[in-house]
């Protein structure tokens, strides 16, 4: 088996996400958002990133507020339980970021096209709507068989997909479970893949359940051990959503100054996941842990 792809978070981000990269991150919508990786991108002061995703909850807002982003291709940017993302709003309104507006379906099809190596895919959504005005990757076409009107969506092949998973081996063979959002097509569409994982396990462990593998490991560039790496979003099998965190973030992100304070609490002083967990605190972590377990039955892949 080829050499290990295990890197610490700093090295993974340094090596694979240069400023100017296009990045799909938070592809699972509300769960398993790679916040730890996003915060490291902020600490390394990356610039001119293009963020790609459906609904990223507050991670896009944080990256925009930290000045890392010049462009967004997304269906929705905000704070799921409270509404607006204030940094996003300021960024668009003061012209520091540009937006290619998508719906969940158009961004799905853009990445599915990218994943399949196709220049476009058709859909039936958005006909007659104004997504056509703010997205040059959308065109009306006629079906070659039926003549009916369709929306063609141009493919997107991001430079990097950053995906949080439950467990990975050091070669990028990883198990994920829960809802998948557009994570599977995001991996296949991207040139490089960085996995952050709650646990690092032996390859044999992964091979005992090949149906749970999220993407072929040979396409993965880096694997990072990042326990609590999706906090405050939920990680099935590990921890629940930290609603308070999102409510607090809403208040802090309302203006630039308090957002800077927020960064100085949660992002700037963190060197590794141990630091982050210390700030989070054992009590809060305990309260978020899975308490009502529901274990799946094993299945047999024997012969």
């Amino acid at each position, binding site marked *: 088996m080829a050499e290990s792809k295990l890197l610490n978070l700093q090295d993974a981000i340094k090596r694979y996400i240069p400023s100017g990269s296009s990045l799909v991150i938070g592809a*699972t*919508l*509300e*769960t398993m958002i790679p916040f730890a990786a996003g915060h490291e991108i902020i600490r390394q002061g990356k610039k001119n990133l293009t963020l790609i995703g*459906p*609904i990223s909850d507050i991670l896009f807002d944080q990256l925009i507020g930290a000045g890392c982003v010049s462009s967004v291709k*997304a*269906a*929705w*940017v*905000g704070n*799921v*339980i409270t*509404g*607006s*993302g204030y940094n*996003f*709003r300021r960024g*668009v*309104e003061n012209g520091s970021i540009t*937006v290619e*507006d*998508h*719906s*969940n*379906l*158009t961004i*799905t*099809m853009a990445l*599915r096209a990218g994943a399949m190596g196709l220049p476009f895919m058709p*859909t*039936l*959504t*958005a*006909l*007659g*709507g*104004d*997504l056509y*005005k*703010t997205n040059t990757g959308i065109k009306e076409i006629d079906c070659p068989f039926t003549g*009916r*009107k369709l929306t063609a969506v141009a493919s997107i092949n991001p430079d990097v997909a950053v995906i949080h998973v439950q467990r990975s081996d050091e070669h990028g063979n990883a198990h994920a*479970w*829960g*809802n*998948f*959002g*557009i994570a*599977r*097509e995001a991996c296949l569409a991207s040139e490089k893949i960085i996995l952050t994982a709650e646990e690092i396990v032996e390859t044999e462990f992964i091979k005992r359940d090949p149906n749970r593998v999220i993407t072929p490991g040979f396409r993965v560039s880096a694997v990072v051990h990042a326990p609590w790496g999706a906090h405050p*979003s*939920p990680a*099935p099998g590990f921890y*629940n*959503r930290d*609603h308070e965190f999102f409510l607090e973030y809403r208040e802090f992100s309302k203006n630039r100054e308090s957002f800077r304070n927020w960064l100085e609490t949660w992002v700037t002083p963190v060197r590794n996941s141990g630091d982050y967990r210390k700030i989070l605190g054992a009590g809060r972590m305990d309260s978020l842990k*899975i308490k*009502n377990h*529901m274990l799946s039955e094993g299945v047999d892949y024997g012969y």
Partner: protein
Amino acid sequence: MDTDIAGFNMRQVMVSAASAEIKNGEVVFVGMRLPMLAFFLAKSLHAADAVGLYELGIARDSVAPMPLMTMGDLPNLSGSLWLADTGDMMGLLQRGLVDASFIGGAQVDRFGNLNTSYVRDKNGKVTRLPGSGGACDLASLGKRHIIIMSHEKHRFVERVDYLTSPGYGTGVEWRKEKGLTGGGPSAVITTLGVLRFDIKTGEMYLASTHPGVTVEDVLKNTGWSLKISDTLSVTRAPGREEIDILKNLDPGGFWTGN
């Protein structure tokens, strides 16, 4: 209206009215926030066999075992029917297999077109809103969709500043001309009443006012000369059982107040 006197508040009336839009056995595309509660309320009352789809890749046929703040909370994954891709849920929608979809809105117009992207104030200043999410898809492709939003004059406008999620466009023929397959909006549930659409014109009209709300309240908060149903009624007030269920679904009152 005071909750202490009536036994319910406007948010609860809205969720109750939304749940009444769901028929038993239907496949429902459940949107963020209030629709989440409406779906579970309907399942607890009259629509035990309804199935809910969630854009993040969940299909579920039971009330979550714990109150939810949002659809991605782990109790909404636990014991679900199917955990899959966003594209799988969108495929069911585009395939015409979704009976009813729920969408929130920031700005709506006479023909039920929705804007959740960019609004412009009187001075021309543009405010950026979160965007479509799945709303454009639900409005384009569902057999019918229900809009839930706050009833304020700056939100109920003659014409939306940006058409994120199609209603009836400029009239009832518009959807067919554009090639849209979904049926269009069937109701707008607001903080003041329930509005429906004239099947001949595609134009919105006031169908019922919530308990304690007058027609004048509604007209004052609507940015065009809104038509009123000949059979205008009062929105059904949620009963004691309904309120109890709602309190169990939202015990902190985050979505529906206390």
